[in-house]
């Protein structure tokens, strides 16, 4: 007979996991840091690539972002998930990397570089890329944070240091633009 206590434990809430690991890191636990790193590495790199479009710059930003976290120990403090803390760090470091490289002319160029390979041979994604590029930067950023980074409205507000209402407003406007555009309307008709 199956044992009644043998119930699979519920997966740990990401917020609880982040707080638990940060508490351990603050006590000098390198294994906990590695677990945090493995969990967020690809997201940080992906975000860095979104801002820089250069793999070597994105690797530098990745290293500097986690070095920044380490520099705060043993007093690293999380008010929410680690994404809210890391997002502005990555964005700031990426901006610095762009200035150093001195050939960046705005988010639009970085995004174009990044999406070119992704849309090859995919007409619908090519259209989406064009519509996305035409969005105001502030709306595009919030849309990507919500849809791709899966951050909550509160986490986005925290990361960008803007009110939640402003986040909602930008997201609404971005989605309304995509819905109104015939090239991307189909996403909303399904």
């Amino acid at each position: 007979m199956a044992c009644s206590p043998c119930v699979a434990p519920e997966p740990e809430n990401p917020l609880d996991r982040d707080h638990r690991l940060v508490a351990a890191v603050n006590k000098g636990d390198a294994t906990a840091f590695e677990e945090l790193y493995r969990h967020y590495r690809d997201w940080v790199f992906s975000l860095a690539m979104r801002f820089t479009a250069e793999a070597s710059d994105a690797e530098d930003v990745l290293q500097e972002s986690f070095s920044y976290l380490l520099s705060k120990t043993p007093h690293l403090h999380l008010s929410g998930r680690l994404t809210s803390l890391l997002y502005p760090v990555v964005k700031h470091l990426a901006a610095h990397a762009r200035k150093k490289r001195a050939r960046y002319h705005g988010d639009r160029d970085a995004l174009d570089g990044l999406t070119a390979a992704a849309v090859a041979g995919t007409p619908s994604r090519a259209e989406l890329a064009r519509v996305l590029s035409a969005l105001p930067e502030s709306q595009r950023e919030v849309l990507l944070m919500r849809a791709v980074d899966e951050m909550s409205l509160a986490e986005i507000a925290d990361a960008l240091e803007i009110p939640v209402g402003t986040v909602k407003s930008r997201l609404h406007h971005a989605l309304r633009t995509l819905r109104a555009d015939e090239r991307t309307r189909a996403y909303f008709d399904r």
Partner: protein
Amino acid sequence: MTMDNGHENGDDPAVPEDLARDLGFLVRPAYTPRAAIDDDILAGARRRLGPIAAGRRRRRSIVRLVPLAAAAVLLIWLVVRPGAVREDLDGNGRVDVLDAFLLARALRDGGNLEKAWDLDHDGRVDRHDVDLVLERARRL
């Protein structure tokens, strides 16, 4: 319902799944960082966090010793606390010639002799006990 920047409070605009998927395809890079980057970052973490962990272990060791140290201090205090020395007959915290003089005068005057003054434990308070006080005073 109250409005906030033109949108109802609690209204979380939904992003269609297909749209989110395709946006992800657009902006997620096709490659991952080099393994050497991982090694560098994790090595840096061990360098930074090692001393923090070591410091905590040292503090825990010291904290464990505190009750022992407190017990030792208490024991020493109970043994050598001021006034607890048998030969300090006048209770002034010192063993000196005055204590010997006090005992000698008490013997001469034939007054009340305290049992505690039988310092050699021979059942009598006498000249030998005065000698013991003087000996102790000399050692100190």
